[in-house]
């Protein structure tokens, strides 16, 4: 461990001479995914719009502390937040989906590594030493990793069930898996550790809100968090009221339930076909048309294999949220032969 810290120290000190060498290159053996490099490099060093990281002795000592405290398995985990910070802060330089995708992959690979390395929660500050410099400063924060690792385990099991549902796991793995957030204070802004943490948090929140904006109908033109939140609240409320109303109605007509699975699915597809845009709008009473090609109203529900085209776009945009829905893959329904083949 002493040798390791020495290496880190050398790299930290050599930053001026070798800006292209990433600070975390040493940790590459612990990283299975190489996708991190662009994020790390772009964030840390030459190629990004931000100037290079200035790491001095306090930074090195932090690394030492970190390693001695928790051991190697935590090392890769520490690099995650840097990437996440990259995702949060450097969104201007790369696409949202990309960064989320990268984080997701690296996050998944990390789950095995950092499972046992649960380090105690501690907060670190380099604000005093680094704020003396007038350039950007790097700070380290440590969030609660225990809760994080639990959640990440749960989420990984759930997230592996369906690939298209990775949106949830990817986005939730960002937050829990951070043991450190390597923030870069922008020029002229306070380097106080609190305000930096606050800024990280805010950026994450605004990122999520951007994604929500695509989900709630009619919110493209809205700028501003408050109005957007209002819209979301109203939408959720109206959806809940609709559900309640419908369930009341269902209660009154309950005795003759005559469910047609294919019809329900077909209507679902029709609704998604209507929403041929990135914003999925729910038009409650416009989706029901009489031109459903495979209607068979019988007493026992019948199932048929449905085309899997239109809905992919719909829920992909939900679960991955950063991706634009794919309206071009809609095709007509396959004819219903009344056979039962929902899945094989």
């Amino acid at each position, binding site marked *: 461990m002493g040798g390791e810290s020495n290496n880190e120290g050398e790299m930290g000190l050599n930053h001026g001479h070798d800006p292209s060498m990433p600070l975390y290159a040493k940790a590459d053996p612990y990283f299975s995914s190489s996708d991190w490099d662009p994020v790390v490099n772009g964030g840390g060093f030459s190629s990004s719009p931000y100037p290079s990281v200035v790491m001095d002795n306090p930074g090195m000592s932090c690394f030492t502390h970190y390693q001695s405290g928790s051991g190697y398995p935590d090392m890769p985990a520490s690099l995650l937040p840097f990437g996440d910070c990259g995702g949060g802060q450097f969104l201007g330089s790369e696409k949202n989906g990309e960064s989320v995708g990268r984080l997701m992959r690296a996050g998944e690979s990390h789950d095995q590594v950092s499972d046992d390395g649960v380090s105690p929660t501690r907060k670190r500050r380099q604000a005093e030493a680094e704020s003396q410099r007038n350039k950007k400063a790097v700070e380290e924060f440590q969030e609660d990793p225990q809760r994080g690792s639990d959640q990440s385990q749960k989420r990984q099991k759930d997230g592996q069930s369906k690939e298209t549902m990775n949106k949830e796991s990817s986005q939730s793995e960002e937050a829990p898996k951070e043991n450190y957030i390597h923030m870069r204070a922008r020029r002229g802004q306070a380097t106080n550790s609190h305000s930096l943490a606050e800024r990280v948090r805010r950026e994450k929140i605004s990122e999520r*809100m951007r994604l929500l904006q695509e989900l709630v109908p009619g919110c493209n033109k809205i700028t501003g968090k408050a109005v957007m*939140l209002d819209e979301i609240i109203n939408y959720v409320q109206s959806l809940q009221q609709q*559900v309640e109303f*419908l369930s009341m109605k269902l209660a009154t*007509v*309950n005795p003759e339930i005559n469910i047609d699975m294919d019809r329900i699915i077909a209507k679902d597809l029709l609704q998604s076909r209507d929403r041929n845009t990135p914003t*999925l709008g729910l038009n409650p009473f416009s*989706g029901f048309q009489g031109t459903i090609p495979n209607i068979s109203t019988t007493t026992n529900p019948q199932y048929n294999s449905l085309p899997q085209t239109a809905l992919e776009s719909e829920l992909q945009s939900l679960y991955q949220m950063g991706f634009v829905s794919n309206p071009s893959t809609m095709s007509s329904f396959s004819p219903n032969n009344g056979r039962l083949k929902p899945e094989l």
Partner: protein
Amino acid sequence: MERQIINKKKRVFSVEPNKIPPSEVFTRKYTSHLVPALKKLNMNKNSSQVNQLTVKHEVDMALALSAQEFAWSRFLLQKLSSSNNPTTATSSSSNGIRIQERSGKEGGGDEDGEIEEKLRELQKLLPGGEEMNVEEMLSEIGTYIKCLELQTIALKSMVQDTT
């Protein structure tokens, strides 16, 4: 034969899991949970007096069971199973009233306070939202919205089918 149909209905995993769109999966799961439950309700009650609240309960239960990948569904399940007497039906309708409560509380940092308030309101709407931190809650809200939409569609078609 019918039993085979019912059994096959419940299985929603396919050999190639990526091919089936998740919303379809959700809808299938949802209806496969809800329809038998309603039929059972029907048979148990033995009359047309099916209680509205129990139907709502079943509706919520089906929603929670069909979306178990998400955190809010776990909270919803908890809520439903803990309060097994159908008192939870009024929760969604009273949400509209509760929203107005906190609109008067604004301290320093006006705009931020507003936003925080709204986030808190949003948290109340989501089952279990108050126990999550804000970022998590925002992602969960997205999936919740989606599932609510699908649920509405399914319910609508159920209602329409029977009228």
